[in-house]
């Protein structure tokens, strides 16, 4: 079957997709976007989290056909050209990245949280990211990174508003 997607702002058409294929498979194996990771393939770990029409989903649980005609944004599409999003910078700066395998999914989930909530409380952060398992960091530095990115984004917004 043929699937049309807008991925990270680009219109893409993929042919020969098998009906049982996941969105994750299409992204990784057919479109050369291996950023989203396959770590459980049954929606338990969050490593494959991507945006689908603006909502974070486990790409392993979305059939490719369900994504037809919709917008997808992956970790590869978080940066604005060469400029990293504050959440990406904060992950490196705070030491929230170790082996890096959970990182792409966590970044999308954390990106959604701060874009949606602004400056979430610690409890909100822990709850919102509870579906993204990490085996290395113990989560404390991920929490720090989300706090830092949210604060910076907030400050940047305020700055913009002040200027306008």
């Amino acid at each position: 079957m043929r699937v049309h997607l807008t991925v990270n702002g680009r219109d893409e058409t993929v042919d020969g997709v098998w009906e049982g294929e996941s969105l994750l498979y299409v992204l990784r194996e057919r479109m050369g976007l291996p950023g989203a990771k396959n770590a459980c393939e049954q929606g338990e770990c969050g490593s494959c989290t991507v945006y689908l029409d603006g909502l974070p989903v486990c790409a392993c649980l979305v059939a490719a056909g369900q994504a037809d005609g919709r917008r997808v944004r992956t970790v590869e599409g978080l940066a604005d050209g060469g400029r990293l999003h504050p959440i990406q910078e904060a992950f490196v700066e705070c030491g929230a990245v170790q082996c890096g395998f959970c990182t792409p999914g966590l970044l999308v989930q954390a990106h959604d949280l701060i874009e949606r909530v602004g400056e979430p409380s610690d409890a909100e952060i822990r709850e919102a990211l509870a579906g993204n398992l990490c085996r290395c960091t113990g989560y404390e530095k991920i929490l720090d990174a989300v706090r830092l990115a949210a604060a910076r984004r907030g400050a940047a917004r305020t700055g913009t508003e002040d200027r306008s």
Partner: protein
Amino acid sequence: MTAPVTAGRRYAGAALDRVEGLDKVTGRAAYAADHRPADLVHAVAVPATIARGEVVQVDVDAMLKRPGVVAAIWHGNAPRLATSDEELAVLQSRRVAYRGQYVAVVVAETPEDAREAARTLRIEYVAEEHDVILRADHPRAYRPENVNAGHPSDTGQGDPDAALAAAPVVVDEEYGTPAEHNNPMEPHATIADWHGDGLIVHEPSQNVSGLRATLASLFGMPPGHVHVVSPHVGGGFGSKAKTLPHTILAALTAKQVGRPVKLALTRRQLFVATGYRTPTVQRVRLGAEPDGRLIAITHDAVMQSSTLSEFTEQTAVPSRVMYAAPHRRTTHRVVRLDVPTPSWMRAPGECPGMFALESAMDELAIACGVDPVELRVRNEPAAGPESGLPFSSRNLVACLREGARRFGWAGRDPRPGVRRRGRTLIGTGVAASTFPALRAPSSATVRAEPGGRYTVRIAAADIGTGARTVLTQIAADALGTAPAAVTVELGDSALPPAPVAGGSMGTASWGTAVVRACEELAARLEAAGGTVPDGGLEVTADTGREVRAQERYSRHAFGAQFAEVGVDADTGETRVLRLLGVFAAGRVLNPKTARSQFIGGMTMGLSMALLEESIMDGRFGDFLNCDLAQYHIAAHADVRDVQAYWLEEEDPHLNPMGSKGIGEIGIVGTAAAIANAVHHATGVRIRELPIRLDKLVR
């Protein structure tokens, strides 16, 4: 002995950002399964559905008629391998040694076709009765010659039985830890590609030099014909340190079909043949004076291994190091069952062993009416309690004191079960941590370019620890340059051979080689008038002689962990409200990466205490809960407040950096601190992990 490098130490100790961080936050970092060579076919390993017996026949012909199927291989048509290692002799025998052992592999053009073929492949077995449950009184338990890491199985001094019989205070209890699975976030995957008589393997590996040697030997070729590529490893915790059967299967299959093969294990398959922590049954006996001073310590541990190979975890070994006592004994017994072979999981030996010893110490503190921190201080040895060797440095007491201060331990009411906040019972607990500071021989090359850039080459592994970053800092200091001028290349078997990222000895081993290569390069540059020749200048160092000649010391890192828990009085739901660890681990080379290592280890210890347990199904002979929905690891919302601190520790007897390994000590003792806190909260002593609701609600 060589003195530590002190001159120009500007970057070791600095909180440098992870050098590959940018690649990892943009999705550019390439892991093994991300690699897609042209003409790739997909292999799926077919697991045995019996726990013991023989494969009689595999219906290869029917399988080959299916569309898309390229090959189906089993013992009957597999190429022969040159090995006496039964674990790696994949498809070399009809025997089935455990349920899930690979008995065939199917190869197809697409992953779906391969998966479907594996599911429907008809295999005829003759099943035999199996035995998969570990018991301390198992009739086939025996004393292995050695246990993991080369320790003797049994040790003893004095007459512990008589001393225990006469001791004024005795603790004599049995403790148990379950089987646990490493579960790195990245599942194991192999892409094997033959070019003529050479083999390229993309594989997440903690030991590319070791994997190259094993593959070369199995396929009967010189090591130079095997190339293992592993630039990024998505976590390992020991499970990617040894050569595993699926890698052999992928290489063998690629050779047979003459095309590159991808064999990616699913999360469920990780629970079978990528190693796990053995369950343990441990008996600890402590005999003491009324003031808590130990007279006798015995620690007897029983573990399991497979019928294929003997792997015995060094569970009682930490009891040889921790506390002074004139009478002592440690023993290890192993039972060979029809189960997969257990292997290394973060702090093998120390982790389960210290759960037992440090729980028993808490019980002794209560029996003597002595504060648990004070009890440990009173039993501090002047030298290695069994080895008699001086400690190169030992700051357990300082860690306990500093931890108690930071945690607010002073004035703690020792009575159990008396603090309540609403429905929640509150308690606090403490336990000690320890891990050996080892070092293995390594080689490394450093190259200077005329423009002022340097490249360090070493077959080390960065499994998320920060090795690439810390080696960059170490090299920058040794060369007297900035980290930005240094590129570290690792994770490739074509680089100078280096030991495993395991045993918390990576940085000590690799760092020594990097320092020696840099020192030699700097000396040669100086001799050449400080000018790098047009073609560059390159130096290789090998630390074999230096490491073998090191002085005899007892070298260990120590730590103290404090936990506060809340237990729901009605449901038994246990939450770790606070975890605080203080460690003494030589010089910390990068506070940013180090803190994450400590906190990550402590969190895995929290996970061990409350959640992790692989349940063996006695009837079918495999682990029942083999995915992340059923095998729980701590999620973000399970963690409330984890803090790690360290003491400045100067130790001239370690290595040029003055560092001790920090990857494993964080998990050691955490579970005991939590179990001790649960006892303090509830009055219920949990001696068998994990601390589940049903064990607390009576």
